[in-house]
């Protein structure tokens, strides 16, 4: 169907789908012979009715559990691309955060109403005891490495650390002063926890005493959207503005920064390779070598889309992403970077 009247370029432009496209019209794809063929995702998981805000790979490297603004969680099979069973529906509104237990059997979700629920990853059933305590939505969750505690961060600016068996709040509320606690990550050593806030700072807390040990690390350019610890707990990676910064976790000194084209929303470290994945606003989707600090891809592996969450599977084989289009995409890392063994 072609527009019969008003056939001006303005109309043509207007008729393109513009849900994700940035304001400037997309330039014509340059036929550059040196461009490597962009790899396509192996699977796309379709079904959620709203933004997929968070997801986790299960330990079997075959399943993903995703949480969405539609209030449900869904379990997906990476081999078939299909939904496993029925969506897990629960009360409390939009899901803003997910965290997987170290033994992989339980996934915790944080809800709009400030509650934290735990769900069995095999049965898809919720564990009876729902934790409340935050006055605003739960934006971040982290499980302690030994599996005994769950930390939750909220828009109300506090962190609560609860003991798993009793559900009792063991530490907190820790008043972070960061306005919203967007990100919360236990160090692999378990003695520290890092929080990233709306007020563009990072704080590192002692998990036993609740005291601030490092920070607030400032001048991050924008609110902190994602945090990671290196495997030996020596470094902290932080995404906030268009830079992903690496800090020494003991001194708080910046070691390096990775630059992107736009704001970074989520980062992930491969458990197998020295690879850092970064995604964000349209045009930001890159893989970096964490030793050489070099980019591994010549162009973003996803374009023209806002991406909110990225994660590697435990064996480092898969990379999954989700954004504002209600879907998840699954990538095979080897297809994207063939030189990785």
């Amino acid at each position, binding site marked *: 169907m072609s527009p019969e009247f008003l056939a001006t370029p303005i109309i043509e432009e207007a008729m393109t789908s513009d849900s994700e496209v940035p*304001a400037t019209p997309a330039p014509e794809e340059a036929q550059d012979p040196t461009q490597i063929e962009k790899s396509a995702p192996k699977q796309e998981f379709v079904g959620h009715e709203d*933004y997929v805000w968070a997801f986790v790979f299960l330990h079997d490297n075959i399943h993903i559990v995703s949480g969405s*603004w539609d209030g449900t969680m869904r379990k997906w099979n990476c081999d078939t691309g299909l939904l496993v069973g029925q969506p897990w529906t629960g009360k409390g509104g*939009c899901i803003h955060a997910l965290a997987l237990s170290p033994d992989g059997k339980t996934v915790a979700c944080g809800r709009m109403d400030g509650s934290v629920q735990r769900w069995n990853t095999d049965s898809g059933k919720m564990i009876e005891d729902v934790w409340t305590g935050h006055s*605003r*939505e739960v934006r971040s969750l982290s499980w302690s490495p030994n599996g005994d505690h769950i930390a939750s961060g909220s828009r109300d600016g506090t962190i609560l650390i609860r003991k798993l068996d009793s559900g009792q709040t063991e530490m907190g509320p820790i008043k972070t002063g960061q306005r*919203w606690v*967007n990100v919360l990550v236990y160090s692999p050593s378990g003695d520290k926890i890092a929080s990233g806030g*709306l007020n563009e700072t990072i704080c590192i807390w002692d998990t036993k005493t609740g005291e601030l040990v490092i920070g607030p690390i400032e001048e991050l350019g924008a*609110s902190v959207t994602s945090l990671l610890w290196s495997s030996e707990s020596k470094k902290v990676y932080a995404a906030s503005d268009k830079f992903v910064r690496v800090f020494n976790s003991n001194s708080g000194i910046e070691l390096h920064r990775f630059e992107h084209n736009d704001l970074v929303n989520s980062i992930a470290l491969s458990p197998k390779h020295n690879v850092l994945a970064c995604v964000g606003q349209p045009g930001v989707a890159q893989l970096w070598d964490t030793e050489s600090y070099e980019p591994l891809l010549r162009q973003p592996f996803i374009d023209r889309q806002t991406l909110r969450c990225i994660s590697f599977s435990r064996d480092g084989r898969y990379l999954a992403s989700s954004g504002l289009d209600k879907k998840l995409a699954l990538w095979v890392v080897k297809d994207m970077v063939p030189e990785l063994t």
Partner: protein
Amino acid sequence: MASILDSNTVLQHPATEETHDEHTSELHNEQVSEGDSDCDVSDGLTHGYQNAESGSEESVEGNKEDPLRFEAIQKIERLALSFLEQLAGSLPNQRADITSIGISQIPINSRSKYPKIELQLADRHKTSECIRVIRYPLKRKGASIKPFAQILRVMDFAHQALVDNVPLTKRDMYYKDVPLFKAQGTVDRLVDDLACDIGPRTGRPQNCNLFRAASKGLICGTGLTIHLLEGKVISINDLEGTLIPTGEAIERFELKEDISWVLVVEKEAVFQTLCRFQFASHQSLPGPGLIITGKGYPDVATRQLVKTLSDNLPAHIPIVALVDGDAYGLDILSVYKYGSHSLRHENEKLAAKRIEWLGIWASEIADLEIDLDTLIPITLHDEKKALAVLSRATDVVPTKWRKELTRMLHIRRKAEIEILSGSSSQKSNSLIHYLAHKVCHFIEMSA
């Protein structure tokens, strides 16, 4: 000085003000202390205005006591007569026994060498009952007829407005004769002084009650308290709209809770619906917010409020607007965001740059499971207005607006907010659902 007058002050007949003043002063006397039991004051004001809202604005004025309006008309006429008499009396062969009547009197026999005409007006700026005098001739080099020409013209406009019972703003007056007035300030001063002169005496010359801004904007929500000068406090609630006071009357704002969003809606009907559902504190939103309506094209008071919020709220609190997806809706949004076309010289003071278009977009109709055929076809007026908006400079029409307007012109249909609450939509309370989702989206994107 506690002046609530600005260049948009409407010349109403004093009756409206008398009533309200009596009302508030009564409440004041009953109260223990100022600022205390402020809900009584604001309730009184709100209820007074709320009752008025049920009818048209004209009925508000028409129902009040006309004697006061006639008194004002008479006073202007007397002032004019006084001038004419002095003019006549200053002629060379004037009989000395003519006595002049009117407010300002100068004994005709006490004439100096040169004929002199004086008009005395109350001076607002002095604390006691001082008078300001407009004299002819002035002891200066330039023409001294101008002040007289100006005050007479103002009197003329005021008189006509009172006779016709039609509201008239100072800005309107200025534009009626720009070459004569030259500056808005001239009109402002003259109107203010005239107001004091012909308005009812309340014992405090600087508190001239004749003119009040007829504000029409409403606000609802929780967590915002407006402190007026003279100690009055307005608390808003999330169940019903509170009239937005003029900027000059406001001393400061107090934000109590963690307001998470600000929503401006074009239509009053939508505003009332949102109030009914207490949307400002709705549980599907991450936090409470404020809802404002200018009831169509916003007046200065509403724009001032939105601008103040835009300038002072932190960046992670989005300010969004719900307007019809047509040229008129976008024109209204444009007034909030860039200022009105005719008042370009004032735009810096009133533009709320941060406000964004939340919806409703023609392009999202399909996502909302609404049949395109249920949209209203555009009229010739819509088309002309759309083309006019599209022809404005790109810096006052963002790309998104352009795209949506062009789409509207192409599909020959426009997306109005009503379709969300109509029977064609799938979900019940779809307006609430739509807004909640969109506001959440903007909150997340602003973080």
